[in-house]
């Protein structure tokens, strides 16, 4: 569950990046966040990851008030949130398996568990056969699948995807969206920030539209969503 109450974020004097935002996303929902550049989408993701602190208001995630989480407890909190970026952010000097295993290693997962879970999640994203490949040896779509596998291997309750299809062609973009939907159907809350109107229209999911730091529309079913 994600809940924002009167959240504002200002980087410096002037127009705030987020202005009095109220949001409520239930566990297991699939939500698109759309908006032009500068609408506050990336700031929203950063606030949810506790990379930034809100200037005003409160954020609750999985019953944790983010403002109450101490610095030393942030890593533990982030383990419940998977995150995927437009530029994949894979480690170029490590192969597919090592990139995914890295997420497990970072939280101190035993090697035995790692050896069981990493191949399983690679199978799920359809990359079991390419576990030895390095990022430069696979396509953009496959790289994004590795990033998704890395985000999922620790079994987070929430998956945040910041423009996950931004660097992909139409075919690969659709493949990634299908994968995200499949992940959502397994119970993970998925929040996708995107510019891709075609995908948003076709997926028929909840769409939150932002402009200049304000939520201007919250289309619950996506049925009536129009650009």
């Amino acid at each position: 569950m994600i809940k924002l109450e009167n959240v504002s974020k200002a980087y410096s004097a002037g127009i705030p990046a987020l202005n009095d935002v109220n949001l409520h996303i239930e566990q297991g929902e699939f939500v698109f966040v759309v908006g032009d550049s500068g609408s506050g989408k990336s700031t929203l993701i950063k606030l949810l990851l506790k990379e930034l602190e809100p200037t005003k208001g409160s954020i609750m995630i999985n019953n944790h008030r983010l403002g109450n989480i101490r610095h030393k407890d942030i890593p533990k909190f982030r383990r419940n949130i998977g995150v995927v970026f437009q530029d994949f952010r894979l480690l170029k000097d490590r192969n597919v398996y090592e990139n995914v295993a890295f997420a497990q290693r970072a939280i101190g997962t035993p090697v035995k568990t790692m050896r069981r879970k990493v191949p399983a999640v690679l199978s799920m994203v359809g990359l079991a056969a390419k576990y030895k490949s390095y990022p430069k040896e696979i396509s953009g779509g496959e790289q994004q699948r590795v990033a998704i596998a890395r985000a999922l291997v620790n079994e987070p309750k929430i998956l945040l995807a910041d423009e996950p299809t931004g660097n992909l062609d139409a075919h690969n973009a659709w493949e990634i969206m299908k994968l995200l939907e499949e992940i959502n159907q397994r119970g993970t809350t998925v929040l996708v920030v995107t510019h891709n109107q075609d995908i948003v229209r076709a997926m028929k999911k909840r769409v939150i539209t932002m402009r200049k730091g304000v939520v201007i529309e919250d289309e619950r079913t996506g049925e009536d969503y129009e650009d």
Partner: protein
Amino acid sequence: MRISTFFYTVKQGAKNIWKNKMFSLASIATMSACIFLFGVFYSVVVNFQSVVREVESGVAVTVFFEDDVTQKQMDEVGEQIGKRVEVSKKVFVSADEAWKNFQKIYFKGAEDMAEGFLEDNPLAHSAHYEVYMNDISMQNSLVTYIQSLKGVKEVKSSDIAANTLTDFNRLIGYVSAGIILILLCVAVFLISNTVTIGIAVRKEEIAIMKLIGATDFFVRAPFIVEGILIGIIGSVLPLALLYYMYRNIIVYVGEKFRWLSGMLEFLPVDKVFSTLVPVGLLLGVGIGLLGSRMTIKKHLKV
């Protein structure tokens, strides 16, 4: 910490060194130079101190007694002196022994001249103690103490010898501390630079680690390991070189400069290196740890 995490951290630390080969090499070289100079300095200083100690051990305070003092009173004074911590040895020289020593020195070859004193010891009241010290810097306080003892007439000591040796010892201590401190600062600075580069190179990796919930320790540990490894490599190399050099130099000097043997006795290699090796290694590890810790604190906000 899990064993697998420990090995992973060590591996990443070693990888960091390999990734920034040039900077790591520069750090190792500087560290080696520092430890090498420290080692040279240490070897010279301990050998010099050994020579000074040798000289110090030959410097004695002479205690003379009042004319009417009995042997028992002199023994008591000797006992009191022997209890002092700064006293390493005390030798009692009776009036007869003093006279015999005098004759040996001043009537050598003209023993018949001394026969005139056969029944009469001209040094009848010259019984005395020669007192040797562990620490010559404490000579003044010892002299004051002995002078306060009952039956003591006079205490003869060489202030110049004591003061010169004490001042010289102090000077060596200050100079070595100063030079070592400068070298350590340079080494810490260079290691800090190497770790800073390592952090810059791995910026993306660190960002990913933070986002997937890695603990501060997990993010920081490889850089600490990097600093420690540089410290270990940078101290083992010069220590090995120093060991080899010292061993050969003492043999060479012993053979080529035999005339020095009375004045200069090198300490054996084991005696010097039994202290130098652990201190050098500790210094290397300490500098590495300090350099990386400082940098992480400054540049790695997790």
